[in-house]
């Protein structure tokens, strides 16, 4: 079986990012999963067991003392070195900002074909096929890459399951970066939120609020329903632009694309760009006081009403049922 590299992102405090599981799962479905990590010298060893548990049969530790000081430079060199050494048939990265930065540069370097934002990958006749969900899920497109290796970025939260645990062999290499061709990191600010809510990207349930919530103070209603449902909180662009909630919660064309079991839209009109980010949800519920709001065209259950009366009643009714 061919080697499939999974690029493992690590936080600046040394934690393996969540995307590692799905990347190694996808890699195991295509060949021999190899985890590639860029680490500060001498620190990668502690990650090996965790990567093995996630299915890595080999862990390639690329050490660089530029990690965290140059923007994606050490990560790019890590993957370049691993690709040169391990002749992979496929290279998988998260479709995060960091993942795409590395994937784009690596594709040019290797003259490799690139597919971004894949929601699935599979092997057919020895060829790697990647599925993309285009125009907000209106189309499903399957592509192959002619001329190897295939570089694929995988949408966060799209691939479920877990590869069987392995006891990985470990390869360590040291990589040099070219400071002249990289941006310099000045500061890293980790958000201090200690939210216990699920993350938007792969939450099974999402409650989103729009401009109809009226103000930042009143947007709390969205959070209350989300907490009652155990759901993540999302928003429309208008709610973000109005300052009700940070942009990271934006669902839609230029925000996050989600595909939960349940999506509840509160005070959201359902503009086509919002729908592009949520219309593949299994069940859609909408509450809007305008009976003609386009969100109702795709809602499985629509309530024409005021969110400030319907939602409190819903929360109460849910509590009553739970008792």
């Amino acid at each position: 079986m061919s080697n499939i590299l999974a690029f493992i992102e690590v936080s600046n405090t040394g934690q393996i990012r969540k995307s590692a599981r799905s990347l190694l799962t996808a890699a195991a479905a295509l060949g021999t999963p190899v985890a590639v990590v860029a680490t500060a010298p001498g620190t990668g060893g502690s990650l090996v067991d965790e990567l093995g548990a996630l299915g890595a049969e080999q862990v390639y530790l690329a050490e660089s003392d530029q990690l965290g000081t140059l923007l994606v430079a050490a990560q790019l060199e890590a993957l370049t070195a691993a690709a040169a050494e391990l002749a992979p048939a496929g290279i998988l990265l998260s479709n995060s900002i960091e993942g795409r930065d590395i994937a784009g540069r690596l594709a040019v370097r290797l003259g490799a074909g690139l597919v971004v934002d894949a929601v699935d990958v599979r092997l057919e006749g020895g060829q790697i096929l990647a599925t993309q969900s285009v125009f907000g899920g209106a189309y499903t497109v399957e592509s192959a890459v002619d001329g190897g290796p295939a570089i694929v970025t995988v949408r966060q939260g799209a691939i479920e399951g877990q590869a069987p645990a392995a006891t990985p062999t470990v390869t360590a290499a040291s990589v040099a970066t070219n400071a002249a061709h990289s941006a310099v990191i000045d500061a890293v600010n980790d958000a201090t939120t200690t939210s216990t809510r699920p993350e938007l990207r792969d939450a099974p349930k999402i409650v989103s609020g729009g401009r109809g919530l009226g103000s930042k103070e009143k947007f709390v209603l969205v959070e209350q329903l989300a907490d009652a449902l155990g759901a993540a909180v999302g928003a429309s662009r208008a709610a973000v632009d109005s300052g009700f909630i940070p942009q990271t919660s934006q669902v839609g064309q230029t925000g996050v694309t989600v595909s939960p079991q349940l999506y509840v839209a509160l005070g959201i009109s359902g503009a086509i760009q919002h729908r592009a980010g949520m219309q593949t949800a299994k069940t859609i519920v909408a509450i809007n006081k305008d009976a003609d709001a386009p969100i109702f065209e795709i809602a499985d259950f629509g309530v024409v009403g005021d969110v400030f009366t319907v939602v409190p009643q819903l929360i109460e009714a849910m509590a009553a049922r739970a008792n």
Partner: protein
Amino acid sequence: MKIIVLVKQVPDTYGERKLDPSTGLLDREASDTIVDEINERALEVALRYKDKNKGTEVVALSMGPASATAALRKALSMGADSAVHVLDDGLSGSDLGWTSTALAAAVAQTGYDLIIAGNESTDGRGGVVPVMLAEHLNLPHLSFLDSVGFNEDVVSGERGTESGSLAAHAPLPAVVSVTERAAEARFPNFKGMMTAKRKPLAVLTLSDLGLDPAQAFAGVGRSVIKTTIERPARTAGRKIIDEGNAGVELAEFLAAGRLI
């Protein structure tokens, strides 16, 4: 200072966008095409600098079919000084690799101190062309910037990370891409629309760029579309009007679907 802004013409997100199921390529007949909103914002970043710094030259660059002229004229009417259109039949159906190769050649030929792109196009949603361009040109990049500032020597900005944000800087020349947080675009004014018609718009073919497709793209891996399936449109389900009991009914619906 010379700033190149990368402008892509895309199907209007307000309309229905279609793919041709036999090729998987965009059905250009199906929708109106416009300048991608994110590129108007990228242009705004350049124009704000130009407003404050006399002698700044802003060039709008687009690769696309003949119709992309309209996108470039829009950029000129907003305030770009000149435009470059990479137009060649040999580029139809280009993937990310070809697009970035051709754009890199056009950018190199045009000359630049700073290249500003959108973070991600609304049709492809790739978010990789700017960084691929940076690799072709051996330049540093700062992508997905929520805020950006620059002078003649250095560009800096902030972008989101998986767990917060980071701030970074790079010496010029560099490639940056900006998100919709970076700037709200201006509208073209009457004077802008009048002068746009007289501003220079150069059309470059692959051979003008010194690119022989047989050589430039030979041996380069390509993503090739195998199948394209249209998802059946979603239909409306039950819709009730709240008469004082809708919250309870909604709870029943969720319970029936085992969602609570």
